[in-house]
C-alpha cells in the first residue's frame, strides 16, 4: 500500500519528456487504480504528452493549467487547497510542476519559497504531491535546491531522504534573499494617510502609454499594498516604480511587519476582517515578493502591462 497518512511531498528528477511521461503516468495510474482523486498541474508540452499516454484514463484526472495558475507561484497553494478540500473523504494525490525552464531568477526564488511553504500549508493533510524537475533543462543550482523543500527526492531508481523543512525554514521565506536594488530610472514617492490618490496619479503617469484594463489592474494591486502601509505599516510608506521589459515593477516599503509566511495565500472568507490586500495583489500580479524583518516590510509587485 502506498496510501499517504500524512503530507508526502516528493520531488521527481526526470530526464526529458519521455522519462517524464513514463514516471508520472505510473504515479497517476497507481492513484486511479486505488480509486483516488488525481490532479495534474503541469505545463505544455508535458500536459499534452501525459494526456496522450493516459488515453481514456485522462478523463478521470483533474487538469490544472499551471501556466495560468502558477504564473505567480503564490497562487498555487490556494489552488491545491481548493482542490483538496473539494475531495471530501476521498483519498487524493497530485502532480505539481511549479518550476520550468524559462522562469527568471526572481520567479525561481519565489518558486523555491512556494515549494518550502507547501510543507507548512499541508502539514498534517494526508495526500501525496509529486513535483517533477527536468534535469536536462534546469540548472544545477535549481536541482540542488530541491532537497531543501522535499523530504524525498526520487532520482532514477533511487529514493533519497532529506530532513523535513521546519518552522525556521518557513519564516526564512520572509527574510530573504535580498531583492536586487531598484534601477536608477525608478520613480520614488513617499506617501502617508490621505495621499493614496497621489500614489495612483504616479502609477497612471508611469503607465501613460498602457491600455486602460492593464492600468486598472496595476492600480488596484498597488493601492491595496499602499493601503496596507497606511493601515498597518505605521501610517506611511515609500513607493518605487519602474518599467522592466513588458512589466511594471512596484516596490512599497513601510515600517510594518508581516509574520505569516502564508500571507496572501489564504483565500478570503466573506466574514474575515482584513487580509485581502496581499491576496488581491497575488491574483493580479505575475509575481509578488515579500521581505519583512523587525525594521520593516518591502513588497515588490510585478505586473505584465503589455497583455
Amino acid at each position: 500500500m502506498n496510501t499517504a497518512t500524512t503530507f508526502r511531498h516528493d520531488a521527481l528528477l526526470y530526464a526529458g519528456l519521455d522519462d517524464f511521461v513514463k514516471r508520472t503516468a505510473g504515479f497517476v495510474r497507481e492513484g486511479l487504480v486505488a480509486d483516488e482523486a488525481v490532479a495534474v498541474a503541469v505545463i505544455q508540452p508535458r500536459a499534452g504528452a501525459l494526456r496522450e499516454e493516459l488515453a481514456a484514463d485522462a478523463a478521470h484526472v483533474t487538469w490544472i493549467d499551471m501556466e495560468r495558475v502558477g504564473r505567480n507561484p503564490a497562487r498555487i497553494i490556494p489552488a491545491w487547497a481548493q482542490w483538496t478540500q473539494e475531495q471530501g473523504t476521498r483519498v487524493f494525490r497530485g502532480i505539481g510542476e511549479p518550476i520550468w525552464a524559462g522562469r527568471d531568477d526572481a520567479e525561481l526564488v519565489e518558486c523555491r519559497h512556494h515549494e518550502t511553504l507547501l510543507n507548512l500549508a499541508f502539514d498534517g493533510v494526508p495526500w501525496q504531491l509529486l513535483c517533477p524537475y527536468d534535469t536536462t533543462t534546469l540548472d544545477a543550482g535549481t536541482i540542488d535546491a530541491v532537497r531543501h523543500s522535499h523530504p524525498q527526492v526520487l532520482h532514477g531508481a533511487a529514493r533519497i531522504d532529506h530532513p523535513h523543512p521546519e518552522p525556521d525554514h518557513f519564516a526564512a521565506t520572509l527574510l530573504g534573499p535580498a531583492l536586487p536594488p531598484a534601477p536608477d530610472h525608478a520613480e520614488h514617492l513617499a506617501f502617508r494617510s490621505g495621499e493614496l490618490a497621489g500614489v495612483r496619479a504616479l502609477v497612471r503617469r508611469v503607465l501613460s502609454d498602457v491600455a486602460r484594463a492593464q492600468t486598472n489592474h496595476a492600480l488596484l494591486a498597488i493601492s491595496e499594498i499602499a493601503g496596507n502601509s497606511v493601515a498597518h505599516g505605521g501610517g506611511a510608506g515609500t513607493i518605487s516604480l519602474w518599467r522592466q521589459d513588458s512589466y511594471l515593477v512596484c516596490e512599497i516599503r513601510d515600517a510594518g511587519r508581516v509574520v505569516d509566511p502564508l500571507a496572501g495565500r489564504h483565500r478570503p472568507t466573506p466574514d474575515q476582517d482584513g487580509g485581502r490586500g496581499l491576496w488581491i495583489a497575488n491574483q493580479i500580479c505575475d509575481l509578488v515578493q515579500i521581505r519583512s524583518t523587525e525594521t520593516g516590510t518591502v513588497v515588490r509587485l510585478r505586473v505584465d502591462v503589455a497583455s
Partner: protein
Amino acid sequence: MSVDYDDGVLRVERISPPPGIRLTGEVDLDNCAHVRSALDSQSDAGPGDLLVDVSSLGFIDVAGVRILVETARGMEQGRRLVLRRASEDLCDLVEMAGWDRVPGLTVERVTTG
C-alpha cells in the same frame, strides 16, 4: 439631488427615489468614511432597496467595497443594497475579495454595446 461630499477625488451625491447615492471619481481607504456616512443617512430614508450608482466610479479599493458590504449586511431583512452599473473591474474585485455572495448585496453589471 444634493452633493454630500466633494474633495476633487470623490464626489458623493444623495439621490432619490429610490433612495441612494451616486459615487463619482475614486473611493479609497482615505475617503471611504464619507461614503459610509452618506449611506447611513440614506438608509433611513425609506423601506425599500438602497441604490448605489457606481456608473461614474473610476476606482474603488477593498476599503471602499467593505463599506458597501457592511452596509448591505446591516440592512433589515428583505432590503437590498444594489450597486447599479458596476464595471467589470468592480465585479472582479467583489469576487476576488470573497464578497460575491453576501446576503443583501446585489451587483448589477454594466451592460456594454
